[in-house]
Structures are given as structure tokens and as C-alpha cells.
């Protein structure tokens, strides 16, 4: 790896949200290890993983927080996403109810998380659909790239053999209304996975990056407003001892 001078590098907390089994952990596994497991067990006990994302003029180090199973019975603590600068809200595009759940999480993030949070809505398991968008009847063969889609007033009827239950148009329309990034992905094939993370990295405003604390200072707040926690007066670093083991397991 060549390093053309010291690029600024910042840590960004990214949280995963979404119904059980939509593929949250699989997306991370694909992004971090470029791997996929056919029968991945439900997440119980993941802490977090880190992965760098190199942009032309800066490096973003994602601290990716998986839900550790606390959402299985709808028991996630707001603390989990409060200081997040970015969130991946995932649904399974072969399961309509998972989009409803995703919308619930988006609303919750908008209510509770930092105002500047970057949210990406991700429809996963694209490989399970035979056609690309669920709108073929009216739209013709659209490309797999969700970002290329436009025009939402199609015929919502699904083709018999297609497992897709959420059309691209429906989810994309919703994402636009709410100001979310939107992608359809497959953790299985890797389609669009790194694109999601790069898009998030690009969307994080520079201003929210500067104020992050150094190693061992705990998680800084999102947004500049709370960033003075550890730099300014009164901030307390409980373990002045320093570096922490961040690269914990994800199951």
C-alpha cells in the first residue's frame, strides 16, 4: 500500500439496524473480510469491528457496531445509536415486513440520534431476485445499480417466480423523502456492498470528523457540538492507560 503523505484519518461510528436475519452481519462480513457464510447464525455477542475506507483525500476508519442480539426482542438501548455518525438500516427485499421495521428504525434515528447522522437504507439479498427491480413490467430491464433507478410510478405486481417483495421504486421513493442514501445489495455476491460504505464515508461532513478524541478517549460525540467532551474542560478519561482492544469478535 502506498501512502502519499499523511492523509487525515478519522474514526466514524457506524451502527447496524434492521430486523433479524436481513443480513446486517453478512454485509459487514463482506465489507470487512470479503467473505460470506451461507447459514450465518443470528448475532449474539458481537462487539464491534473496524475497517478503513480510503477516500481520495482522507481515510475513514469505520467502527462498525453490530446489534449483539439486543434487538431480537426489540430491546435495543438508545445509547447504541446515540453517538453514531452513520447508520446502515437494512431490510430484506424478499420480505416486505422488514421494510416496515426499517422505517421504524429510521424514525427512531431521526428522533434520537445526532442531527447530522448519515443514514443509508439498504435492501439486501438482491441475489434472490430473478429480476432486478420488481418494476420490469413497466420499466424494462433496469440495471442492478439501485442508484440508477428513477421514476416510481410503475406496476407493483411481482412476477410469479420472483422472491422480491419490495420494489426498488417503493424503497427508493421512501429514501428520497427521508433524505437517506439508498442501495440494493447482496452480501452473498458482494454487489454494491463496498459502494454503500464508500457513499457513507463520502457523505460524512468534514466538520463532524475533526472533533474526535484520540485513542483511549472513548467514543466522541457525533456532531461538532458534543465533540468538546474530551478535548475541553471537564472531560474525563476513565482509563488513562490508553489503547483499547477495538478489534473484538463478531459472530
Amino acid at each position, binding site marked *: 500500500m502506498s501512502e502519499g503523505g499523511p492523509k487525515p484519518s478519522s474514526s466514524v461510528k457506524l451502527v447496524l439496524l434492521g430486523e*433479524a*436475519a436481513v443480513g446486517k452481519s453478512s454485509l459487514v462480513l463482506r465489507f470487512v473480510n470479503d467473505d460470506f457464510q451461507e447459514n450465518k*447464525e*443470528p448475532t*449474539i*455477542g*458481537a*462487539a*464491534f469491528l473496524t475497517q478503513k475506507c480510503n477516500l481520495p483525500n482522507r481515510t475513514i476508519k469505520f467502527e462498525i457496531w453490530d446489534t*449483539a*442480539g*439486543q434487538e*431480537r*426482542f*426489540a*430491546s435495543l*438501548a*438508545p*445509547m*447504541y445509536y*446515540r453517538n453514531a455518525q452513520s447508520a446502515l438500516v437494512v431490510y430484506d427485499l424478499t420480505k416486505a415486513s422488514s421494510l416496515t421495521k426499517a422505517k421504524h428504525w429510521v424514525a427512531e434515528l431521526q*428522533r*434520537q440520534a445526532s442531527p447530522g447522522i448519515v443514514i443509508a437504507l439498504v435492501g439486501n439479498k438482491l441475489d434472490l431476485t430473478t429480476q432486478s427491480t420488481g418494476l420490469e413490467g413497466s420499466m424494462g430491464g433496469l440495471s442492478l445499480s439501485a442508484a440508477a433507478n428513477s421514476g416510481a410510478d410503475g406496476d407493483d405486481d411481482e412476477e410469479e417466480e420472483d422472491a422480491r417483495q419490495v420494489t426498488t421504486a417503493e424503497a427508493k421513493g421512501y429514501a428520497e423523502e427521508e433524505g437517506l442514501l439508498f442501495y440494493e445489495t447482496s452480501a452473498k455476491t458482494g454487489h454494491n456492498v463496498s459502494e454503500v460504505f464508500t457513499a457513507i464515508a463520502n457523505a460524512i461532513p468534514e466538520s463532524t470528523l475533526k472533533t474526535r478524541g484520540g485513542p483511549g478517549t*472513548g*467514543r466522541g*460525540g457525533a456532531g461538532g457540538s*458534543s465533540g468538546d*467532551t*474530551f478535548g475541553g474542560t*471537564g*472531560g*474525563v478519561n*476513565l*482509563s488513562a492507560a490508553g489503547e*483499547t*482492544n477495538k478489534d*473484538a*469478535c463478531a459472530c
Partner: protein
Amino acid sequence: MEEHDPVEDLKKGFDVVVMGTGLTETILSGILSVEGKRVLHIDKNPYYGGDGASLKLSQVFAKFRGETSKSTNDPKDKDWNIDLIPKFLMADGELARILRSLQQVQDNVQFQQIEGSYVYRAHSGGILGLGGHSGVIKVPSNALEAATSSLVGILEKGRLKKFLEFVANYDDKSGPMYQGKNLDKELMKTIYDQFGLETATRDFVGHAMALYSDDGYLNLPARPTFNKIRLYASSVAMYGSSPYIYPLYGLGDLPSAFTRLSAVHGGTYMLNTEVLGFEYGADKKVSGVKIKFEDPKHDGQFIDLVINTSRVVAAPEYVPEGKKKVPTGQNVIRAICVLKHPVKDAGDNSQIIIPQSQIGRKNDIYIAVLSDKHHVCPKGYFLAIVSTIAERGDNPQDELKPAFELLGAIEEKFMGNASILWEPADSVEIEDFDNIFVSKSLDASSHLESCTDDVKYLYRCMEGKDLDIDDLKKTASAE
């Protein structure tokens, strides 16, 4: 995916079922999970923290006034995190020590110092003596500060300095014998006498440094008081101006952080879950708990389920009065006050103690003052949460009056009924103990030291050995 059905998973049973997500319970379930136990943690509320939760302003309106619509649509509502039970952490106390050894909890919660610790001093006998210099004075944190504090007279300064140096040089590890005195025998009163300290000085040493809320300690052996004064001093020494630290976003973030620790170590969490009852085996020990909860797969559908377990940890509200819990006799009254100004002479985040002696009471009144610096209210607002042990049944409003007068104009004041402090009624020592371990209510003190005492006590009862915090650190980081 059939074998990963969460309900099927519940049916496998648990080593421990924990009821209530207050701080005591969540620290315990965090520790037990780290140690590899299979833990199920239940709360009947839809939020974490139990009585020790931090609520939004809209939730506070709903709770105290039944006004459900009030300010829920206010975009600033999320900026409020109002503690139902305000407490601070001693920077060098046990809870901070536990937190230091659990990096994963620290990852989730940030602390900030409380800037000052103040004590109220009435002049010419009583708060109504408006003519004098009644007001709050900063508590000296060490011998040096004591020597310059306006709390004590010129002659007294030398005596106080001597006394504090004497206490500072004591080391509890070398036992009760200290400079010819047996601190397990000698009463605190006697030691004060030996140093010739005035009543007013004893008052602030005992109440503002050792943090006793009444004068009972005077007639008890001196050793615990020495240790409390030393804890105060070593806590101040850690970060500066006060011995206290406090989590951003309210105290309620602490239970949340411990639930995350537990979950990361395999703990299962269920909020909004009603406990229908306990099941017992032939040996009269608990064998399971019956719960009612919403099916994760079918919104709005509820399931009754018996979950097998051989041990239960329960907050007092999950067990009936009588066999399992009794009132301690202490009831706490608290008032949440919203201000639009900092408290005069005490800054925008501080603890103010109004010693009982200054206002003719038996128990001190505490005021926790917080601002947007700790992310508990929007900019421009201040929270002052007042609490004391009730001494009369009739008029709690009146009992807190000296505090309200200190606060000046109060925008909103929320007061509920006095809350009963509970303690467990039975113990492991009894022959037919049912293996349901009940925690104590969070006490009336201004800090969390007694909470960690309870954690250690319950741990010892459950595991038959002392909690080894250093060992925990090794286990937690060996992931």
C-alpha cells in the same frame, strides 16, 4: 432458520434470569455474562433503567402530571435526559473502578466531571435569617484548601488542617490501629474532640466530605468515616475541582452500557415483558419464571412462557412485600426542578448539600445541578434535582422548601409521592432460601457507592466468593 427461532432459544433455559434493568441488576448481569453464564434479562418497562432511568421531558410530564401530549412534538424533547434518581459517581469510588476494568462499558458511555461541591451555610440560625450571609460555600477538598476556605474561622483552620492530614495519612490496609488509636473502637466523636473541632467544622467534614446524610456516624467507630473522607479526597485529586463524575446523557446511560456489555457476552434482553410469576421445584427453590411478552415474529401477539432457571436476581418491584422484601423505613422525596439560570454561587453543574443542622432537620437535603454540558437538557436550561429522606408524612413540598429557596425562580417543578426504600427480607443464610436474590432500592445518598456494595453483596450470595474486579478485567478482555 428454524433452529435459530428466538423463542425456541428461550425455552432452553438460563443460568440466571435477571428482573429489572436498574444499575444494580445491570452491573450484575454484565458481570455474570462476562463470566460465561447464560443470562436472560427482563424489564416490564419499554425502556432500560427501571427507577433509575433518565427520561425525556415529555415522559416526565406524562409520569408526574399525566399530560401525555405535552411537548412530545417538541424537537428539543430528545435533548432532555432527566434522572428520576440523581446520583453522581465518586471518581475514585468502586463503580469507577469497575468501569475502568471494563473497556467495553467505557466504549458506550462518556463521563464528565462535576465542577463543584458546595455546602449550604445559614447565618444567624436558619434559612429565614435573610439578613446574614446565608448561602453556599465550596467544600474544601484537601488540607490546603481547608486552610483558605471561608467555611471556617482563622483559629479553626489550623485544627482542621491537622485533622485532615491525620486522616490522609491513614491507610486502611494496615488495619484499625493507627497512631496509638484503634479506629474500630474509637468513636468518631472522640476523634473530633481530640482535634478540638467546632460543631460547624464537624458538620461539613461529616456531611460534605464523608457524605453522611445524618449525624448517626458520630457515635460509631471512626474507621469507616476515615475511609469516606479519604475517598472524597482521592476522588477530588483525580480530576480536580470536585470528587464527582457524571455520564453524558444522564445516569440512565449506565444501565444501558452494562446491558450492552452483557449482550456482547451473550446475554438476552427483553423489555416490555411482564413477569407473571415464579415456578418452584420440589426443593422449594425457584425453577423457572413465567413471563408474557410480545412475539418477535408477530407484532401485537403475546405469548406466555415458562423459562427454566435455577436462580433469579430481582429488583424490589418484581417481588411481593413480606417474604421477599421489607421497607427500610426510609422514604425518599425528590423534586425535579427545571431552571433557566444557573444556581447562584454554585455554577451550572454541582452538588449542593444543605446539612440538616443548618435547617433544623435530621437528614440533609441534596441538590444535583446539571446543565447541557452533560447533555441532560437543552442549552439555556438547567436541572436541579432535590432529594431528602422524608421526615414528616404530610407535606413533602414544605420539607424541600429550603432547597427551592436556594434555586430562585423555578420554571417547572415535578414531584411525586415519597418513594419507599426496600431491602430484601430473607437471605441465603436461611435454610429454605428460594434462590431469588433481591436487590436494594437505590438509597438516598448522593452517590453510587452503596449500589456497588449491593452488587458485591449479591455476587457473594450467588457465587459464594468475592467479586474480583481485576479478574473480571482479564476475562472481559480475553475475547
